[in-house]
């Protein structure tokens, strides 16, 4: 997956969006995106969530 954007880590609108979201998962998606500047960072959050659930399922 390519880096497709040039996120502005100080984008006030993204901050505002993050505050408007209630889900911790959603908040962590924004944080990961801003930190690593890629869609892969968000996908990794999703994969981590799944791995945690898989461990619990065992």
């Amino acid at each position, binding site marked *: *997956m390519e880096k*497709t*954007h*040039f*996120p*502005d880590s*100080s*984008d006030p*609108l*993204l901050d*505002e*969006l993050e505050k*408007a*979201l209630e*889900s911790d*998962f*959603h908040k962590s*998606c*924004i944080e990961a*995106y801003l930190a690593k500047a*890629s*869609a*892969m*960072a*968000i*996908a990794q959050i*999703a*994969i981590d*969530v*799944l*791995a945690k*659930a*898989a461990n*619990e*399922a*065992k």
Partner: protein
Amino acid sequence: MKLNKLIVRGLRGFNGEQTIDLNGDLVIFSGSNGCGKTSIGEAIEWVLYGRTLKRMKGDEISRREYQGSYQNAHFGGPGLPFVELHFTDSTGVMHVIRRELKADETSVLRVDGNIAANLDQFKIAAVYDRPLVLQHTLQDFIFMKPKNRYEVLSGMLGLEGLIEFRKAVEESKTFFSNNLPRGAKEAQSRALLLVGSMNREPILKPVTAAIKQGGLTEAKKQFVQVTFGRLPSGTQESGILPALEKAKTAKERSKLDWGRFSLSAIASPEDHQAISQLRGLKDQLSAFGAEVEMVRARIESAEPEAIPPARKDFYALGIEFVDSTHPENCPFCGEDTLKPERLAELKAQIEFVGSSSISFTGVIGAIERFRSMLSTQATTISRITPTLPSESEVATIGELAVDSKKGVDDYLEAIRQVARAAADLREKRQRLDEEIRVARQALEGEKIPEGQFPGLPTALQEYNDSVRSYISVANGYAATYATLDPVIKGKLASEEDVRFLDLLIRGVKEWGDIRIDRQIFETLESLQDLIRRTRLFIETKQKEILQQRDSDIKAWYLLLSGASDVGYEQIVPSTDNLELRAKTFTKQMMAAPNLSQCQLNCVGLAVYLATATRPGSPCQFVLFDDPIQSMDDDHTEAFKKTVIQRLLTSGFQVLLLTHMDTFAGDVERLYRASTPALYKMESYTLSGPNIVPHGPAIKRLLAEIKRDKDSVNDAFRKQSTLGLRQFVERFVKDLYSSETGQSVTKRFENKSWPELRNLLRQCKKFEPADEAILEDTHEFASPYLHTDDSRPQTVPSPSHLNPHHTAMSKLYEKYVAVFNLT
């Protein structure tokens, strides 16, 4: 941010290093197509953003085609291609941004000599939020798909970060579903099969319904409830799996195919077909005996044979030995006594030639009929032969009917009896078959043994007895089977029972897979929800921003186009696209298909102007690259007079690139008070654009007249004459513009003196006495405007031209202060 200087090397149209002075509130570059104007715009765009919209769009079309297009085709070093931009920030501090192009088309950015990751400190980041109105972007915005237009405009509105985030979530969702960990993917496949199997069981439908609704706790509760229903009472939840395994094993043992061993009782031996066939067999055997007796009587009444059997055999042997090469020699004595007549005689003697012919056909037919009937009867008996259980099946029957010991014992005894009776029947049948074979063979040799086949009736009788016994035993078997049948059937398990238990076991073992599958689904749903929420957020923000920005766009549009019943009306945004609406009187319609090219040009300009001048914009400059390409005269005038003026008075630096010299000259003249810098790009060389500082048009004209007036070449002197005509016109128009602030449109080009004089008389600073001087030169030069060869004009000599040049030079010097040219 206002621009001071641009230094470019090796990028786009620039090969050798060039420094371009950008100082001033209005900087104009004028030059024909292909001279490198756009390269200036692209160099500024690239140094600020690291890429150009033109290239981004090109890459979408064909990466291969656009690969390497940032670097100048001739550039060979030294060093890397670079662009350096010197500018003053909003606080008055000067900075230098330098970007070097690497071989992989990424770049190294420096700010004031230090490596920098971005230009965040100057708030330059968004791709679309830029003060650059370039040729391709202007048209692209108008004709791009509504979805793309939405993204571009949203970017212009400062929403690009949100849009890019939404795209990233969309990408991550696709990536997540395509790149699940192997274990999760396998669990997902198993869960799919398991839930599918559960859904086919009516009793488990509430379980699958709860799973689909996401209520895994409720689903598990329902599942456990169903499972307990199949297990002995008292089973604990912790012991649910072993209990299920045990139940399944028990059920599998009871998967006996009991019906396979069934046999209907034979109600009455007398009624049974097999019995009637036994009686038929006896009749057939009697018929056979009668036939045999008849043949025997015939044989006995036949004449005795003339030749003893021993001789007959001797003759037969001799004939067999007859040598075909010596057919007349006796095989025993070698004499040639075996004449054909004698041979025929011997052959006749060894053949049975009775006095009357005795036929065995009838008796052979009788035994065949007997044999056929026996075969039919055997088939009938086989139909009343039960399939007997194997040893393991006998064991299972014993387990199943453990509560009915006598019934089982009787049944097992009946099995043994059936087996014994069947063996006896086979033996008797084999003996009967043997007797029939012997009789048949004898009859085929036309011999009837003594006693007329005495073994045959005996064998038939024994066979009959065996059949009767077998039927009796089979009846006994049927009776014991019938007694045991209800007991066994009560214990039997169906395939469905076993399969269902197996499904419950899978459910317990693979419940974790269902949880993982559900988690995958919920994660994807959550990502989708994030996309939806981001979209809604963008939409809300967009509406908020557009409320203000759309009025800005409309204001810029009205500046360009003026109020009209037909024209651009508004932007209508939605989640994923954006429509430009026009109006025709009171009716709204789509803008792109219904507005003229000129109106669309104005819409595009208005959008970019509203963006470039939005409050909080980091750039205090706007660069235009051929902004009026599709505009008519009136709109071009509006652009020159109102748009540039609005920008300059609002404190924006204006950089203008145009291929129209007249347009460049007009702008330069209109805003002379702002000390514009005008550059002429006259030609394009291997090292790049040739950018030459250029004075006002009127001053250039005077210089050109002076250069050509004394030439010996007629063509140059004619050009000098025409220059005088243009000077007069330019003088009048410039004076008029300088005094009134109004520009003069093309309508006044090549016009007669009275029209120019009319303009002149509106200039208060012009002395009426000078009017005659201008008129004289105008009248002198005007005939040379004609290109009609039938009316050739004698080209003026230098002595004719010199007085006019002198007069015009004096007038220019006299009024130069009025033109603001000092």
